[in-house]
């Protein structure tokens, strides 16, 4: 009856471990949810409309800088990343160069953002002889975004049914015409999802901006001369983003409501990031359903 005992022990072990997994996984997810809720609740306790104001006491300027900087960076990393992704999916041959390119992209995506920030500071500010600017920050963030956009584009091209390409090539189109007129439009939904995800990540970037976009901001909302250093749309003015504002609140808490401003900034940032990644997920699910219907 030794065998029976063994089986019973194994079953008991199995049941015990199942309970352990339920508890640990439940605790982990509860912790994460509690974390997110705390950030949001603390941010909105004592909320006053002044917190959104476009001046020193509010975070309106920082919010605008954040969105503008992400927009600028997508303008740069979008085309470049998509082109690099197309290259890897369509033109690259299997060989040492392509293998090396893959390692490069992976290294790029795992680089500490503070290192990218330093590189950006050296190249976009010191070498150019400029000063802290939104543009330099956008370029640094672009370096961080490029690998993500490139790999999403490559995946999108690779997962396209082979019929798209064969049909177009069979009609006499060149490889590029096939890519541009047939494959790219079909991949666009997934690429856009990738861009949204990249934007979501760029919103929260702070270390890469510390030495590129700087922690000061001075916007005059009446100045619409693009060359003026206080014009909101001038990309060559310094611009503090939301995440840097939180960083500054810790070290240079000059104003009395610094802590509350930082709490509120965190909440807004969290909502922005969550909003973008939930939006991307929703979009990709809808589009997958739609595309799935076609190919069936």
């Amino acid at each position: 009856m030794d065998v029976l005992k063994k089986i019973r022990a194994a079953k008991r072990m199995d049941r015990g471990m199942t309970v352990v997994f339920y508890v640990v996984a439940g605790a982990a997810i509860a912790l994460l949810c509690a974390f997110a809720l705390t950030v949001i609740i603390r941010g909105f306790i004592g909320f006053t409309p002044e917190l959104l104001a476009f001046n020193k006491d509010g975070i309106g300027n920082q919010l605008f800088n954040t969105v503008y900087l992400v927009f600028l960076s997508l303008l740069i990393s979008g085309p470049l990343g998509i082109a690099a992704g197309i290259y890897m999916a369509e033109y690259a041959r299997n060989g040492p160069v392509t293998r090396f390119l893959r390692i490069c992209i992976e290294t790029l995506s795992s680089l500490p953002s503070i290192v990218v920030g330093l590189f950006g500071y050296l190249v976009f500010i010191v070498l150019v002889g400029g000063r802290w600017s939104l543009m330099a920050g956008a370029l640094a963030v672009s370096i961080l975004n490029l690998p993500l956009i490139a790999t999403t584009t490559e995946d999108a091209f690779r997962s396209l049914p082979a019929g798209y390409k064969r049909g177009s090539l069979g009609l006499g189109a060149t490889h590029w015409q096939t890519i541009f007129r047939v494959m790219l439009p079909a991949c666009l939904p997934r690429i856009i999802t990738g861009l949204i995800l990249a934007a979501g990540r760029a919103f929260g970037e702070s270390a890469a901006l510390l030495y590129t976009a700087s922690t000061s901001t001075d916007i005059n909302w009446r100045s619409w001369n693009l060359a003026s250093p206080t014009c909101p749309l001038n990309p060559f003015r310094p611009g503090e983003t939301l995440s840097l504002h939180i960083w500054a609140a810790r070290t240079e808490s000059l104003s009395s409501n610094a802590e509350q401003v930082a709490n509120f900034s965190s909440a807004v940032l969290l909502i922005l990031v969550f909003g973008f990644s939930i939006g991307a997920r929703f979009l990709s699910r809808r589009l997958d359903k739609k595309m799935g219907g076609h190919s069936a």
Partner: protein
Amino acid sequence: MEKKHLFWKEHFWRILITACGLFMILLTLGIGAFLAYKGLGTFTTYGHSVWEFFFSSDWDPADNTEGGGTVGAAVYLVGSLSTCFLGLLLALPFSLAAAIFLSEIAPPWSEKFFRPAVELFVGIPSIIYGWMGLTILVPVIRDLFGLDHGFSVLAAGIVLAVMIFPTITTVAADALRAVPKDYRRAAYGLGATRWQVIWQVVLPAARPGVFTGIILGLCRAFGEAMAVAMVIGRARQFPDSILSPTTSLTTAIASDMGGAMDGGEYSTALWTMALVLFGLSLLFILLIHLVSRKGGKSHGRA
């Protein structure tokens, strides 16, 4: 005429796209080259030995171009290593349990909720973790252990653990899911319980993927600057316990680079730290390649 047409229809664009692809190589090499150019100055221009940088704790670089200070960065290295491994130690059991739960145990409805939720947390900005650590965790640690202030290795470790938990979990869960169904069926067919299948079949088969997740998590923890800088206390001393404050490589770069004179010994030493970080992420990536290649071979699926 015909030839020119084909040029615009194909060759021009092909060259352009190829250039964009190769630009990524150029960019990576460029970053490496610039970091090496600035960072190696500690050893060439200022004549310090590599041994001194890595193993001496005598840190007093001169903030000018004459040099003559000392650049022992051992404290920063030890600070980075200790916080990262503490973070990994804290996150790993939870991550593995959550990953196993996700891929093997979770009923479909909860998996549908659990998986997106975890993935959502991968994208939370690290500055928010830092701010929460500073305003909630640090005071709690202070009161709990009766310290003067709560800035400590423990605080940094907990912040990093929360930060890398979603990363490790998603990668490990994907690896577990990629284990062929036949492995499980065969084990169940032999009468194994679910726990036996997980522990003796699925986990060993998914080991390379789980390692990849761990390395990616470590990589993220190593490179994190702002969140760590906010809770670590920035005290230049070896930590005697997990409750004492210390500092780290990224913390030093984030807080001191702004004040250091460009090209001076101080800033050059900071660039050397950045070079070390770059080298580490390259090392981590090569490690992942090595692990996954080995794993692919031993899998030997039909």
